């Protein structure tokens, strides 16, 4: 999945198709911004199960829910190790 983002803050959201029922699990393994692996910044994320408390820095989603991360564009001015710094 790729997206072009205008300048400013954005939320990237991965969401299960349905709120109920068994749908398997999902794990986020990595994320690249402008072609560069974003490294530890990926843990600035939040897992929001639909029927449970939200959890910070969780990459594994065993219950249906959303995985949300905020991205600041331009990323090369906001993330170390991305682009020319």
């Amino acid at each position: 999945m790729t997206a072009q983002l205008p300048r400013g803050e954005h939320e990237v959201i991965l969401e299960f198709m349905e709120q109920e029922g068994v749908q398997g699990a999902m794990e986020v393994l990595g994320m690249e911004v402008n072609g560069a692996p974003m490294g530890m910044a990926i843990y600035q994320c939040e897992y929001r199960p639909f029927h449970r408390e939200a959890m910070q820095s969780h990459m594994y989603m065993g219950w249906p829910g959303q995985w949300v991360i905020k991205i600041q564009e331009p990323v090369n001015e906001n993330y170390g190790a991305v682009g020319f710094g």
Partner: protein
Amino acid sequence: MEQWVLGNEHTRSMWDQHVEITHLRGMAENIWGADAQAMMAEFQPSESLLMKYQHNIVNSDRALRGKRVLDMGCNHGLYSYLAMRHGAAHVVGIEPRGMFVNGLNRFAEQNDLPMQFHRGYDTDMARLLREHDIDTVIMMSLNDTTNWENMMYDVRKSDAEWLIMQVTTLPDTWVEFSKEIYDHAKTGSGMPVGFTLHYETFNSDTRAGINPMHKDTADPETGFQHVRHDGKYDLKSSHVIQSLQSRQYIRKFIDHVGFKVESSVVQPSPLTKSPSRLAASGLYQWYLLRNEK
């Protein structure tokens, strides 16, 4: 030496005179792929980048013009490129991560630029100095994760004439020595001349490839450690011990090895908006050293 002022117009003017944006776009695309086009569409050098450019490159003109330059730990190769644009006859960049080395070699070849890049480590310094007949060495931000003291010895013993160093140094006032330390010194152990602080941390970026514990198993492209049996990245296990030295210790070590200090500048003020923790804390320091025989 000219004092650095934030937003220094002279530095930006020098940047505009020496940098071709089409080159930067080519570098980015070769390293990070087509996705980097968006990043480079409106690229402007940040304050942090201009500050490093001023102190590593602009202020080191005499150590670069006409010289054969070795850029150890060249990362994305920007400073290799800048050294070349400031008159270096040839630049050799050393970096463990394939995504940088391969992309930069493609870029240099496409543009017929006198630069070449190799995969390598800090432990290769002595051999590289000999093999490439190096005049000037650039060592930027190597003192937190590599054995920089050994590299300093290697440079001192070589025929290289110049060493451009960017280090991160801690103010000497951050740690006060106790009475016990001075009492111990009186026993004949020698006077303390500074300190090193060791930090246990995670890799905040893709530099796992330089972790001595894992460099043999790191992903050859990105440098991330492979610590899981399935070959997938496990960032949370990417522990490193980083070390930062006090300003007095680094100066003592430079004198001890025998370099002549041509100039030394401590970062004048923190860049609080910088994504770099070091720049935001104002911990950068630059040395231009001459290797006199």
